[in-house]
């Protein structure tokens, strides 16, 4: 039909609409202008969020994807526009976030000539995408876009890059959309084998001290309920990875806290005491395991993951189950006997008691001295009744937020885990708020991290995104300073920061900001910040040389836990 003869740019936008996309994060530029021109006609269907830097676009899309479970979409130009999103693409790859990046590219005839703003995006992103493809002809547009979305969101999600040349944007095509649901070389969701599930159930039924560690795979698979049923039927205590947080409610009696370098003492110690360790949707990152050679050696290991590559990659397994968390947990729950394991669960309390006295109380309930970071996180948890969507940057703010936030709902914790990207927090929080406007989005960020993407305050201003920003301001690059203190003889090389007047900056962007330096004012200011849906910043001056504890030093066994700079957890004495 005549009216369906359209150009590649319009075909691209129609495909997005077919894929259910309603929000795009982007920044225009020379080689993507035909798409931006057509976007003008799609204003009623596609909301475009104009960021202030392309890195902001990709992190916002990641925050959006992780808050909603939908695929984040990024639209940028070629060359610098495309290279500016690379950090975020890599971040999305390691943290399994569904994102589709659409980048402009020079015309077909100029490819490979070092043309103005030409970058070899396909070459550059091969190892950090789930799939990438250069669209050189408008005829391929519908095929490429539908395939991109199918790949990005199916199975273990990940980022996909479409590099769209000028010819593909301008060329005419008889448009027809066909949804992609099958690729012959790709099995997104392998069916778990019956034998492996039976074997796992047998191990669990014989176990006296079973323990579960779960990761983001539970959230990505929508298996929160299945996890809870599984744990409660089997009477199995569980620890969470950083990205697994909020998949199980913080007040669940079987939730023993976060595992890993800055995790809780109990789940780390018990990892090396359990007789069966079940890993669900997690990948045994080195921040979780400490030294691999001493990790859970005594235990039979059952590893459940949708990605066959992850099973046995780091930790040799006794039973590997390849499949999505929801299906596997449901099957497994059906086959395990009801247990309580009272004594085993009770044994976690001794570790908890030590942590409460030595670490948590001084961090969350101090009576004198400067404001502690933990107090701030606790005040936000208190004021939001654990229902806020917590976004963090990277560093001490991240670990403290992970440790002391409370989660009563799923999809409530967004953080850059695998890549540890400073500057992630602010744009991710914007994306999360735009994706989930009904939720209270609270960002914890350091004085270092916020300055990496501080330009996105402009996006907050323009979009009126009601993000609540808590700057844990200690005038240091805190996490690096902590490592310098502990492992480099307090030689504080390049970690002291002279900070700008954040209230002044906030005021220039028309965002309200309060400076908090007194403990007495903290709870009131937090309440006030959360009282409405407008953006707000609290610049909180916290204890400058405070450390995140407990801590397992890098390259140490997960059971060698520092309680502070001097004391180790005296397990076994």
């Amino acid at each position, binding site marked *: 039909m005549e009216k369906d003869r359209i150009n590649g740019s319009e075909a691209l936008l129609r495909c997005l609409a077919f894929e259910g996309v309603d929000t795009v994060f982007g920044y225009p530029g020379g080689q993507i202008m035909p798409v931006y021109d057509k976007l003008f006609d799609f204003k009623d269907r596609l909301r475009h969020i104009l960021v202030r830097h392309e890195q902001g676009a990709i992190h916002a899309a990641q925050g959006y994807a992780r808050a909603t479970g939908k695929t984040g979409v990024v639209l940028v130009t070629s060359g610098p526009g495309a290279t500016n999103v690379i950090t975020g693409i890599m971040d999305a790859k390691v943290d399994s976030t569904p994102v589709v990046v659409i980048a402009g590219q020079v015309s077909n005839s100029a490819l490979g000539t070092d043309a103005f703003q030409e970058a070899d995006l*396909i*070459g550059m992103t*091969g*190892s950090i995408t*789930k*799939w*990438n*493809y*250069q669209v050189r002809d408008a005829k391929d547009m519908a095929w490429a876009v539908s395939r991109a979305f199918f*790949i990005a969101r199916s199975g273990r999600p990940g980022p996909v890059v479409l590099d769209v040349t000028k010819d593909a944007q301008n060329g005419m095509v008889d448009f027809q959309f066909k949804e992609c649901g099958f*690729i*012959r*070389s*790709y099995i997104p969701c392998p069916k778990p084998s019956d034998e492996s599930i039976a074997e796992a159930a047998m191990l669990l039924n014989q176990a006296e001290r079973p323990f579960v560690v779960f990761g983001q795979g539970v959230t990505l698979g929508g298996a929160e309920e299945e996890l809870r049923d599984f744990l409660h039927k089997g009477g199995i205590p569980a620890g969470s990875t950083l990205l697994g947080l909020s998949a199980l409610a913080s007040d669940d009696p079987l939730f023993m806290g976060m595992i890993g370098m800055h995790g809780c003492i109990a789940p780390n110690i018990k990892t090396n005491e359990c007789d069966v360790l079940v890993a669900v949707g997690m990948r045994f990152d080195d921040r979780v395991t400490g030294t691999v050679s001493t990790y859970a050696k005594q235990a039979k290991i059952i590893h459940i993951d949708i*990605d*066959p*590559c992850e099973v046995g*990659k780091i930790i040799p397994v006794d039973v590997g189950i390849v499949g999505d968390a929801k299906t596997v947990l449901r099957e497994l729950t059906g086959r395990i006997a009801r247990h309580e394991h009272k004594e085993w669960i009770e044994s976690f309390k001794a570790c908890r008691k030590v942590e409460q006295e030595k670490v948590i109380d001084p961090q969350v309930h101090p009576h004198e001295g400067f404001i502690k970071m933990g107090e701030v996180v606790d005040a936000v948890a208190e004021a939001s009744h654990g229902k806020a969507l917590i976004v963090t940057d990277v560093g001490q703010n991240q670990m403290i937020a992970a440790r002391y936030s409370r989660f009563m709902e799923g999809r409530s914790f967004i953080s850059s885990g695998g890549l540890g990207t400073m500057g992630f927090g602010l744009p991710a929080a914007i994306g999360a708020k735009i994706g989930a406007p009904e939720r209270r989005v609270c960002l914890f960020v350091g004085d270092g991290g916020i300055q990496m993407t501080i330009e996105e305050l402009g996006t907050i201003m323009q979009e009126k995104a009601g993000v609540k920003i808590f700057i844990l301001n200690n005038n240091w690059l805190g996490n690096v300073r902590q490592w310098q203190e502990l492992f480099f003889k307090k030689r504080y090389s390049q970690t002291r920061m002279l900070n700008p007047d954040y209230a002044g900056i906030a005021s220039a962007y028309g965002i309200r900001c309060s400076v908090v330096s007194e403990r007495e004012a903290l709870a009131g200011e937090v309440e006030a910040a959360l009282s409405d849906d407008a953006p707000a910043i609290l610049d909180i001056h916290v204890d400058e040389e405070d450390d995140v504890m407990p801590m397992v030093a890098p390259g140490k066994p997960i059971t060698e836990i520092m309680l502070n700079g001097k004391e180790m957890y005296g397990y076994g004495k």
Partner: protein
Amino acid sequence: MASECKRYSVIIYTENQIGLLSQFSNIFTRRGLSIWSLMALPTDLQGIHYLTIVTDGEERSIRNAVLHLESKIDVVKAFFYPGDLIASPEESIYKLSEEKVKDFIRERTEEKQNYLNNNR
């Protein structure tokens, strides 16, 4: 304990997409595995190619590299064998014109005769 460095052959069945070869080689480079030889051939399945990559390394690295290769969307299957000698039985029938065969035999005979004359 570091395991021994040995020679392995990695076999990949893959869709023939632009840029895949560099992605494959990156998977080896990233793990410090050098590629000794590489061969690519089409298969009977339309669009599917067959690659043999011979490399030296520890079994654990090779195994991870192969899992990584398999995780690529366009890769149908990847696996590895110890050693670089893979026997794959093949038969082929060539149809040649009689003239060509005669020419070929004459050339070879002349070559052989020349060689013998020169080295006598």
